[in-house]
């Protein structure tokens, strides 16, 4: 069981968060089902109720090196979308995740997934993942009829530059129908890169992770009369919307219990790509032990426009301080990588 308590102060008129919030409590139940499969369930308890974040069976003994999953799961699109809140290197998620990939819930849907390690030159790791989902994922995809399934593909390449340094690259694609109906499609394209450094003799004291993710969204919307930036009905611009967003971040561990990091954000909005939000964050993390974490984050966001319909258009700056207490009970889980 993992608890995630967040306190927020400062000014944010566009996306205000509660001053104190038991943001999420996640219960994980994981076990081997039989000689051929294992099961994983993650239930999240938040202020809005209980949610099955993930619940899937993984077939581990299939021929041909194939690993298959069935159930509800986070899709393999990019990096951040695959991560649960408690393994993020920040308190929040990047603007590009919120604007283009469904935010905290992300592309998390019921479906099937097949992964296989591909043949590659020695010491290069190549892995391909193909997924088919029902087609309901946050505000990204909407299933209006049975055939409105969504698909996700991910190709991962990984190489050890040295025993301490490695590079992880990925390209992703997702396609599904959006909330305007079966004839309106959303396509997402993503590129992610992660550079890790961890000297093995001092692995528990020193590490560096630099990462970046670049996402393009192409969203079909009904044609209509052009409207001013931020003043369209329901915040939706007409016709085909091409939005782009990215984040880059760096995290440095300078002592056994201490980490410092920063993140740069920029993202257009999926429904009106003319609106662009920018952000900067600085993060300081302290680990009392492997099972608890105290994290502070200063976050500056320059919103391109309000989200609410009817709100006056124009940019709005938000300066916020966030404090997070995260703690875990029960069996020792896997370390994130």
């Amino acid at each position, binding site marked *: 069981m993992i608890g995630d308590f967040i306190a927020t102060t400062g000014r944010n008129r566009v996306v205000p968060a509660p001053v104190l919030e038991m943001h999420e409590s996640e219960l994980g139940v994981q076990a*081997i089902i039989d*000689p*051929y499969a*294992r099961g994983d369930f993650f239930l999240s308890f938040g202020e809005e109720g209980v949610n099955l974040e993930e619940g899937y069976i*993984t077939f*581990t*003994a*299939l*021929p*041909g*090196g*194939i*690993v298959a999953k069935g159930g509800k799961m986070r899709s393999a699109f990019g990096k951040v979308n695959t991560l649960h809140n408690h393994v993020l290197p920040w308190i929040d998620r990047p603007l590009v995740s919120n604007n283009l990939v469904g935010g905290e819930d992300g592309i998390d849907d019921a479906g099937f997934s097949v*992964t*296989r*390690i591909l043949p590659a030159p020695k*010491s290069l*790791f190549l*892995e391909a993942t193909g997924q088919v989902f029902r087609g309901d994922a946050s505000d990204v995809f909407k299933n209006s009829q049975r055939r409105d399934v969504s698909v996700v593909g991910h190709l*991962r390449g*990984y*190489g*050890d530059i040295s*025993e301490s340094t*490695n590079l*992880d690259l990925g390209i992703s694609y997702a396609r599904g129908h959006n909330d305007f109906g079966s004839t309106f499609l959303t396509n997402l394209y993503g590129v992610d890169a992660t550079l*890790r450094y*961890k000297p*093995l*003799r*001092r*692995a*528990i*004291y020193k590490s560096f992770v630099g990462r970046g993710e670049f996402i393009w969204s192409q969203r079909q919307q009904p044609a209509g009369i052009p409207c001013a930036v931020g003043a369209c009905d329901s915040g939706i611009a007409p016709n085909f919307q091409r939005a782009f967003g990215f984040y880059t971040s760096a995290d440095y561990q300078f002592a*056994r*219990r201490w980490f410092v990091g920063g993140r740069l954000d920029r993202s257009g909005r999926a429904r009106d790509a003319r609106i662009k939000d920018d952000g900067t964050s600085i993060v300081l993390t302290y680990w009392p*032990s*492997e*099972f608890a974490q105290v994290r502070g984050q200063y976050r500056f966001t320059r919103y391109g426009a309000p989200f609410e319909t009817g709100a006056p258009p124009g940019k709005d700056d938000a300066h916020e301080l966030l404090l997070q207490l995260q703690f875990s009970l029960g*069996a*020792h*889980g*896997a*370390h994130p*990588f």
Partner: protein
Amino acid sequence: MEHTHFRKREIMIITSAWRAAVLVAAILLFPSFAAAKKLNVVTSTTDLAALTQEVGGDKVNVEAIAKGYQDPHFVEAKPSFLLKLKNADLLVSVGLDLEIGWLPPLITQSGNGRIQPGANGYLDASQFAEILEIPQGKVTRAEGDVHPLGNPHYWLDPDNGRRLAKGIAGKLGELDPNDSAYFQQRFADFDKRLSDAEKRWNAEMAPYHGSKVVTYHRSWPNFAKHFGLDVVGYVEPRPGIPPSPSHTIDLINLMKRENVKVMLIEPYFDLRTPNSIASQTGGKVLVMTPSVGGEKGVEDYFKLFDYDLGLLKQAFDSVK
């Protein structure tokens, strides 16, 4: 008639050439066929790899995941390890939750049904060893990162090394019955060499029997038991918890009171606190390797004890 004979020879030559070409292509495309079917063994640590190599000889290809100078609790689950695991016939793990933070996801993602827990190619080596420090009663994290099934650093007792080698030889024979006798013969040879080495090691350590030491982490209970050392304290206040000022003061007082002069530190821990303690107690900080490959020249299971015991003798002699 002669024409028919030549024709037959021509056909035979062409057929042989085709067979050779197919064989060469098969060898090039599937090099594992060419390797006379050696067993591919992956171990979680270098110590298990060294023991597997001892009994497997040239009938096995052995690779370890963790390096000997790496904290085995905190290995990263790198995808490059999946390249080793996907073709493994056997995975040997330390068990007792030592690798719980990194090995289970690697096994799941390997796509290799042979090495899944419960399958014939998965071997938890702890089943063969004498396990110490098995917690009695309720275990909570208030006691730190305690391993509820017992202390997993069991390979540091040569008697456990013998038990592990025997168990691994048995498993190799099970997976490759044709070479079972070979593995048993290799084990018998290892057993003899280990017995000889143990006599030497035990004699060398006899003068220091009962000596008091402090260690950083609880890595050495099996080693201490075998060689008659008395571990009276730890630099960590609790397993996995970094040293605190108050605990360090308590430890300094304990070492002064008990006249403890030798501290055993694993190569992956920071030396600042141990050095500070040593400067206040007149003690000696000894960076001992708990694993094969932890220091240059420590290339096999015998050299691991040769190296550590050599350091220990020097240290005890220097603080007499």
